């Protein structure tokens, strides 16, 4: 489970063709830019979650 959490944002990140587009935009920022920026806190959260899972395991 820990590894899944760590891997998920990475997989999303390398699937570039999925987000290589201008729309849907956010406040005028094209998808390509805001999605990658958003993936940053998402991946930090995923690492935090993975750490919680790791600590909970004996």
């Amino acid at each position: 489970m820990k590894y899944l959490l760590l891997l998920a944002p990475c997989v999303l990140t390398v699937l570039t063709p999925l987000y290589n587009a201008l729309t849907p935009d956010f406040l005028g920022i094209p998808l390509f830019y805001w999605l990658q920026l958003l993936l940053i806190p998402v991946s930090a959260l995923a690492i935090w979650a993975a750490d919680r899972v790791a600590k909970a395991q004996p």
Partner: protein
Amino acid sequence: MIDNLNWTATIVFVFFFALVTVIGFMASHWKAGDLNQLHEWGLGGRRFGPWITWFLLGGDLYTAYTVIAIPALVYAIGAYGFFAVPYTILIYPFLYLTMPRLWAVSRKHGYLTAGDFVFGRYGDKGLELAVALTGILATMPYIALQLVGMEKVIQALGFHGEGYLAHLPLTIAFIILALYTYSSGLRAPAMIAFVKDIMIYIFIIAAVIIIPIQLGGFGVIFDAAGKVYEAKVAADPKLQAGLILTAPQIGPYVTLAIGSAMALFMYPHALTGTLAASSGQAIRRNTMTLPAYSFVLGLIALLGIMAHAAGVKVTNPQDAVPQLLLKVFPDWFAGFSFAAIAIGALVPAAVMSIGAANTFTRNVWKPFVNPQVTSLGESTIAKLVSLIVKVGALAFIFFVPTKFAVDLQLLGGVWMVQIFPAMILGLYTRWYSGPALLVGWAVGMILGTSLSWGAAAWISVHGLAWDIPLIGKFDLGLGFAAYNGFTAVIVNFLVATILSAVWKSKAPDQTQAADYEDEAAAA
């Protein structure tokens, strides 16, 4: 030389520079230790808790060159320059898993460098030397480029000199840096990183709030930039540029992000920052919090887009950010921002020179020149080497065209990826043998370098089709090009695996499986 000097900006700039100079010299008394011991001078005594590590690694990884060069790439061709964001997303999960292990085994056995660990694990001096020399070679141009970043902002202040005098402020700054690094070691950049990182956060957050307000919102900004890229492509249809990636850019973008992520923590300065931590848990916490810097890096990249919207027209893209800041900020805040960038060169330059010095002392001098070197001897050599490395970087700036340093750094990245197999596989298994990894490394180095030898210039990507001498054309049939470091390390890994299956090594392994677990993992 100073006729066109922007006095307000310069006074603010000099003030902050003086501030960090004082801090640099005072640092030797912080968390006091015997600076004649290499692990005290070169690793801060391994006493940096999570917050200090955060400031140090952040300041170390997000450099002046990054702040100048990434937006410069975005300014020049658009979306491709954003590769820095996926690259930093990929790093942290990987670091979470691997770096606490390296930290634990290094703490247990007193390793200070990649070369130390590799020798401890595989018992092969050739591999140790290869890892060390790769690190030193790749670091040198990187330090020189920090100076380039510093000079860009000094020029933007209005300082113009003829010939060698043009480099006067830089030389003064660097001599001061050399002096306090010599006396305080890693503690100096660690303390300075506090100031620098806070300054960078302030000016970037200000920029992404103020500039869109000034220009009428992000929609307007991206539209304006989009038009610039369209005009560029209309003028030169072969140019790959735009607000989003062109089809041929996708393969390179992804592989460049992956390859750069693999390389980053192989650099001596990244390992130095990591091994200075006080615990594996400090490192893990940092993998959750360092992404804040990645976000700022994404915003920094957007400065390249904003420059177009603000009407900044420069022939050298590296001037885009300094000119943008001069245009949109009042002089005193521009001076503050330039100081942040210039100080942003000092921290990594210091840590890089310390990392290179640690590496040379432990993995070149000690094994091959004087195995009986004492602790005091080690730290003396390291201090001297860090001075020499800085002088060398300065000489680069004086005598070598910037383009050469940029090309060398590009190659340095390709080379640095090649020690990834030895380092990372070694953290988990001893199945591989030292000599096999060494051959894999050599193949990767040669392949990566030859792939980068373009017709007219050094290039970082190459199509996945090759002309192999004596064998003929080999085409993987995949339509895209890939980052040379990535291609080379795949081949490196395959070679090492095949050879390890047949060539077992009886060399000693100093480590045991339990050494790689720190208390948090074992708990």
